[in-house]
């Protein structure tokens, strides 16, 4: 399961910031083009969080679409797949967002 290492990084990173407080929920942002599958993160989370202050926490996962900027016509457009092609037909595109993997916030007790 490739998402286990990512999920472990999420747990370790949050635990480092929240100290002894119990974590009730995590608000995650997993970009549609991040290469990470949210369901796989859910699947790995219980295992990764076991025995930590994050055990039993709820995951709220947002999956934002990406944005690309065409280097030919300068149009900024929505990107949903990795076949990044501007509406003008050009594939010379700068990916502005969509690959992010972030912990936006957590709810602690």
């Amino acid at each position, binding site marked *: 399961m490739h998402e286990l290492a990512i999920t472990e990084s999420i747990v370790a990173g949050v635990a480092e910031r929240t*100290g002894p407080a119990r974590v009730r929920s995590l608000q995650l942002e997993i970009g549609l083009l991040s290469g990470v599958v949210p369901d796989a993160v859910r699947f790995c989370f219980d295992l990764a969080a076991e025995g930590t202050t994050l055990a039993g926490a709820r995951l709220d996962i947002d999956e934002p679409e990406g944005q690309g900027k065409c280097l030919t016509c300068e149009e900024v457009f929505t990107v949903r797949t990795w076949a990044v092609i501007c509406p003008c037909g050009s594939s010379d595109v700068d990916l502005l967002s969509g690959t992010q993997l972030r912990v936006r916030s957590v709810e602690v007790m």
Partner: protein
Amino acid sequence: MCATCGCSDDTGTRIDGVAVPGHDHSHGHEHSHGQDHARGHGHTHTVELEQDVLAKNDHLAGHNRAWLDQNTIRAVNIMSSPGSGKTTLLERTITGLGAEGVSVVEGDQEPPFDADRIRAPGCRAVQINTGAGCHLDAQMLSDALRSLDPPRGSVVLIENVGNLVCPALFDLGEHARVVVMSVPEGEDKPIKYPHMFRGADLVLLNKVDLLPHLDFDMDRFLEHLRRVNPGAALHPVSATRGEGLQEWYAWLGAHSPSAGTPVRAR
């Protein structure tokens, strides 16, 4: 603070009763926020973290890259599915180029270790045994470089764990990424693993000696590759027969420290 260099990173704040930026109190009563938070007083607070999950790895990768640059060493991260021919390619490369200017870092999940195949021709090589881990990360490369101790001006070839998914996410501090894909895997690979192919500086299409025996649609493959990565260099090779390896050596030469190729900006 970073334990390695003392530089500051973004993992600074802890909840220990002192002010935490964005520590938002959605409940409407007054109380002192001392030690009672640690014990948990039955209601919740939102803490804004805005934390990049891969930040720690990226930070360490930056250290690796800085160290390599200081020592005028170039690192190439070689990735593929299991069995596409990475170790075979490295064996051939060391024989073809001579072991002097090249050293090898081998990432492997299980013995028998690929590094034993590399050590044979008298080349510097270290093995990273990742156990159940399915990719290399920047910490592993940092440890490996310490024991490898590659000479100044050399090239370090890194064989990542055979896997097209998560190695794409973990920057090691390398200067270039090579994706090896072999003909029997089929022409759809770039579309199935776009994240990996998107990040490639060079794609080596290996096992082209098998083309006459398979229905591999080269045009479709090119179309798929260009859709996810219009800019990557592409060389068809056969690591066992030697076909196309001169082009691969030329590419490596152009990415060696003496060629002064600009450092990959990531």
